[in-house]
C-alpha cells in the first residue's frame, strides 16, 4: 500500500521541507496547518487533479481553493514541485522585494485559482467555480481545503447550504481536522463535533479518513467523484505540524517560524524521511 503511493509520499516530504524552509527564511508564516494538509494537497496535485502547469488558466482545468489561506507554505511548494514555477521563487515568500504574499494570492503565483486569507471566504468562491462548471457545461472538478478552526465562520455554513441547493457534485471540500487552532484545542475554542452529522445535515456526502494515509485519501477522492447530486466533504483527521517532531500537535506552531537550530532539526528529520522513502 505504501509503495503504491511512494511517489506521493516523496513529494509531500519534499513539500514539507520547502514549507518549513520558506517559513524559516521569511522568519514568519504558518507551518502547523501547512504541514497537516500536505498529504491531501499532494494527492490532489500529483494524483487527482487535471491541471497543466504550462497552461495554468486552462478553462477546462480542475480548480483548487485553499480556503485556509494562511497555508500558503503548503500550496506554494506544491505548485512549485508540480512545475507551475521554479522552486527558487519560494525564497520570495513574504518579501517586500517580490510578490509572494503571506496569504495565498492568485495574480502573481501561477497555478493559484483564488486569493484567500480571510477565513470562511474561500469555500464560497469554490462554490462559485463549481456553479460555473455547471453553467458552462464543463466537467472539471473543484476542490477546497478548509481548516477545522475556520469552520466556526458562519459563512462556511452559508456556502455549504448553497452548494447543496445547487447539487454541486463537482465540488469536493476537505476539512483538515488537525484539532488545533491559534488559541488551543478546537474542541475548547469552539467545539465543532459532531462534524460528520453537521455536514450531512447540510446536505453533503461525508467521508471520514486518516488524512495522512494515501490509500484512504485516494479512495475518498474517487468516492467524491462518483457521488452524484450532492457535494462531498472529506473530514481528514490529521496531525498539526506533521513530519516535524517538535511541531506535531502543538498549537504554538500555528503561526511561528523556526529558528536556525529548529530549522536544522526539522531539515534533518525530513531529509531522513526522504532518504527512507527513496531507499
Amino acid at each position, binding site marked *: 500500500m505504501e509503495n503504491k503511493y511512494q511517489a506521493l509520499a516523496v513529494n509531500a516530504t519534499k513539500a514539507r521541507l520547502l514549507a518549513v524552509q520558506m517559513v524559516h527564511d521569511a522568519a514568519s508564516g504558518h507551518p502547523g496547518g501547512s504541514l497537516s494538509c500536505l498529504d491531501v494537497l499532494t494527492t490532489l496535485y500529483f494524483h487527482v487533479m487535471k491541471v497543466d502547469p504550462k497552461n495554468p488558466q486552462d478553462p477546462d482545468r480542475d480548480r483548487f481553493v485553499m480556503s485556509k489561506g494562511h497555508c500558503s507554505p503548503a500550496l506554494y511548494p506544491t505548485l512549485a514541485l508540480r512545475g507551475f514555477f521554479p522552486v527558487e521563487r519560494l525564497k520570495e515568500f513574504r518579501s517586500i522585494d517580490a510578490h509572494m504574499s503571506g496569504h495565498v494570492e492568485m*495574480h502573481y503565483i501561477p497555478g493559484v485559482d483564488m486569493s484567500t486569507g480571510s477565513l470562511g471566504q474561500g469555500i*464560497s468562491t469554490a*462554490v462559485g467555480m463549481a456553479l460555473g462548471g455547471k453553467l458552462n457545461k464543463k466537467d472539471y472538478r473543484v476542490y477546497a481545503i478548509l481548516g477545522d478552526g475556520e469552520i466556526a465562520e458562519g459563512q462556511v455554513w452559508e456556502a455549504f447550504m448553497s452548494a447543496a441547493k445547487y447539487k454541486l457534485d463537482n465540488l469536493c471540500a476537505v476539512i483538515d481536522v488537525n484539532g488545533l487552532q491559534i488559541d488551543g484545542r478546537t474542541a475548547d475554542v469552539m467545539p465543532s463535533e459532531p462534524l460528520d452529522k453537521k455536514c450531512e445535515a447540510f446536505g453533503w456526502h461525508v467521508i471520514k479518513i486518516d488524512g495522512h494515509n494515501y490509500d484512504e485519501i485516494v479512495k475518498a477522492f474517487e468516492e467524491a467523484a462518483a457521488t452524484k447530486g450532492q457535494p462531498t466533504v472529506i473530514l481528514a483527521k490529521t496531525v498539526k505540524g506533521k513530519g516535524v517532531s517538535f511541531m506535531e500537535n502543538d498549537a504554538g506552531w500555528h503561526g511561528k517560524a523556526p529558528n536556525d537550530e529548529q530549522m536544522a532539526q526539522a531539515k534533518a528529520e525530513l531529509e531522513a524521511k526522504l532518504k527512507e522513502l527513496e531507499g
Partner: protein
Amino acid sequence: MAEKIATRAAYGNALVELAEKYPELVVFDADLAGATMTKGFMKAYPDRFFDMGIAECNMVGVAAGLSTCGKKPFVNTFAMFAAGRAWEQVRNTVCYPRLNVKVIGSHGGLSVGEDGATHQCIEDFAIMRAIPGMTVLCPCDGNEMRLATEALLNYEGPAYMRLGRLAVETVTDSIDGYTFEIGKASKLAEGKDVTIIATGMMVQMALKAAEALKAEGISARVLDMHTIKPLDEAAVLAAAKETGCIVTTEEANVLGGLGAAVCEYLAEACPVPVVRHGVNDEFGRSGKAEKVLAAYDLTPEKIAECAKKAISLKKVSC
C-alpha cells in the same frame, strides 16, 4: 411633468433588457428580488438567476468564484447589507483579487423611509470608496441608471452601485448634450457663482435649488457626480476655479462620501470654500420617506441655503 421612476426599477428593467446582448450577465440576490427589482430578470432568465437566501457574505464569494469562470455576476441586496454586512467579502474576495463582480446596493440612504435606521445605509459611499481600486456609482434617475448598468457590463473589474427606493423624476434625458461615462461628471446646469455637486436623488433637488437661486439672482452650476470614485477631478477643479465655491450634496453621511472626496481633492489642488450637505453624522429614523428627508434637511431649500453660505465664505480669510 417628466416621468418618475425609481432607479431600482430602472435597473431591474435594464437587466432584463440587456440580458440577451450580454449572455455572460448572471444575477444574484439574497431574498430581496422583489425589492431590489431583480425579480423581472429572475422570471425571464431563471437559469441565470441565483437566489442565495439571506446570506450576503456567501453570495459575494460565490459571485467572485463564478467571475473567474467568465461570467459577469451582479450581486443584489440592500445597500446596508451589500456595503455593510458583506464589506469584508467585497474587500478581500472581490477587490483585492480585482475580480469582475458588480455589487449593487438597493435602498440606499434615508429615503428607505419607514423601515428605519437599520435599513437606511448612509455609510456605503465612505466604506466602499475606502477600498483600493473600487469604483463607486450612484446614478440619479432612470435614464442614467439604464446607461450606468450597461456601462458596468462593459467595465472589467469590481464596482459598487447604489440604487434608490423612491420614484424620482427623470431629468437627464431632457438635458442637451447629456452623456454618461463612468468617472466623468455630467454638467446639468451652467452657472458662475457657485457649483452644486450632487449625486443620486440629490441631483434633482440640486436642480430645484439652482432654479430657486436663479430667482434670487444667483447663478449655480450643477454637476451630476454619478461616479463618486474615481472622482472627476477635472470637473471639480474647473468648478472651483470658475465658480469659486462648492456645495456637495448626498443622501449619505457627510463624513467620507462625496463631500469628503471633493474636499480631499480640492484641499490639495485648489482650496476654495466647500459646504458639505448631507446627513450630519447621525442615524436615520422611521417615517414616510419624504418626511424623513425633510426632517434631516435633505431638501432643495437647504441646498440653496448651503449655496449662499458657500458664496459668503468666498470673502472669508482664515
